C-alpha cells in the first residue's frame, strides 16, 4: 500500500474515488450479467446446432469420399474447376453491451442459371447428389459459424468484464475504504491531541 498523507484534502479525494469506483462496480456488474444472459441464449442454440451440423456434414463427407474414391485427386479437382454458384456474404454489426458482433447474411446464386459447370457425361452420378447434400448443409454451417463466433467474442468480453468487477470488488474498493479509515483516525487523533494541549494551556494560565 502506498503511503497516504493524512490530510483533509486527501480524504475528500478518496471519498470521491470511492463513490466513482462503487458506481463503476455496479455498472460493470450489470454489464456482466447482461452479457451472461445473452451468452447463455447463444450457447444453448450453438450446442443444438453443432450436433445437427456435425451429423449432417460427416454423413455427406463420407458419401463424397466414397464417390470420389475411384478418381484421382487431379480428376476430382477438374470436376470442380469451374464453380457453378457464387456465395456472397454481407455483414451487419450488432451491438450487444458494447461488444460488436457481426451478423452475416449469405446469398448463394447460380452464376448462369440454366447452365451447369459440369457435363453429365464425365460427372459421376452420385456426385451431384452429394453436392446437393452439401448445399443443404451449407446454410446451417453459415448459421452456426455466426452463432459460435458471437459466443466466442462474447466470452472474451465476459472474461474481461469479470476480471474488472472482481478487481474493483475485492481490491480497489476495500483499499480505498481502508485508507479513508486510516485518515479519519489520524485526523481524529490530531484533534484530540490539540484539545488536550488546549486544556493544559488553559489550566496553566488559570
Amino acid at each position: 500500500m502506498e503511503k497516504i498523507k493524512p490530510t483533509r484534502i486527501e480524504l475528500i479525494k478518496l471519498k470521491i474515488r470511492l463513490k466513482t469506483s462503487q458506481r463503476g462496480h455496479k455498472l460493470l456488474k450489470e454489464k456482466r450479467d447482461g452479457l451472461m444472459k445473452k451468452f447463455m441464449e447463444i450457447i444453448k442454440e450453438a450446442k443444438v446446432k453443432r450436433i445437427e451440423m456435425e451429423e449432417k456434414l460427416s454423413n455427406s463427407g463420407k458419401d463424397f469420399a466414397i464417390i470420389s474414391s475411384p478418381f484421382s485427386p487431379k480428376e476430382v479437382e477438374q470436376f470442380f474447376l469451374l464453380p457453378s454458384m457464387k456465395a456472397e456474404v454481407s455483414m451487419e454489426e450488432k451491438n450487444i453491451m458494447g461488444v460488436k458482433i457481426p451478423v452475416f447474411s449469405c446469398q448463394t446464386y447460380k452464376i448462369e442459371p440454366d447452365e451447369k459447370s459440369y457435363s453429365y457425361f464425365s460427372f459421376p452420378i452420385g456426385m451431384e447428389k452429394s453436392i446437393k447434400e452439401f448445399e443443404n448443409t451449407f446454410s446451417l454451417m453459415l448459421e452456426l459459424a455466426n452463432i459460435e463466433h458471437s459466443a466466442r467474442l462474447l466470452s472474451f468480453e465476459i472474461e474481461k468484464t469479470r476480471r474488472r468487477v472482481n478487481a474493483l470488488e475485492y481490491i480497489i474498493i476495500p483499499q480505498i475504504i481502508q485508507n479513508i479509515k486510516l485518515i479519519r483516525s489520524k485526523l481524529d487523533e490530531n484533534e484530540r491531541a490539540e484539545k488536550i494541549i488546549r486544556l493544559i494551556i488553559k489550566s496553566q494560565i488559570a
Partner: protein
Amino acid sequence: MKVAILGEKKIVLAFKSLGVSVFGVDKEKDFNLAVTEIENSNYSILFVTENIVEKYKNKIEQFYKESLPAILIIPGTNNNQGIGKESLKKTIERALGADIGL
C-alpha cells in the same frame, strides 16, 4: 465478402461448386500460403476441418480473437474427433469460469 474453407483436398473440393473459396491443405507450405491469402483479403467466414485445426493449432487460435473472419470447425473425413465440441466447451469455460454442463 467471401467464404473460405480450409481442409484436406479430398473433402473440401465439393464446396467449390457452392462458390466457396477452397484452400486444399496437404502440406505445410499449402497451409502457410492459404493463411497469408486469408489474412490479406477480406474473408468473413472461414471453415476449418478438424484435422487442420489439430495440426496447426497455434495459427488457428490466433484467428479466434479477431472479429473477422468467423471461424467454424467442421468435421473432416476422419471420424468425429470432437475438436469442434471441445472448442465450444472452451468458450463456455472462458465465459463462466467452469463448465457447468448445460
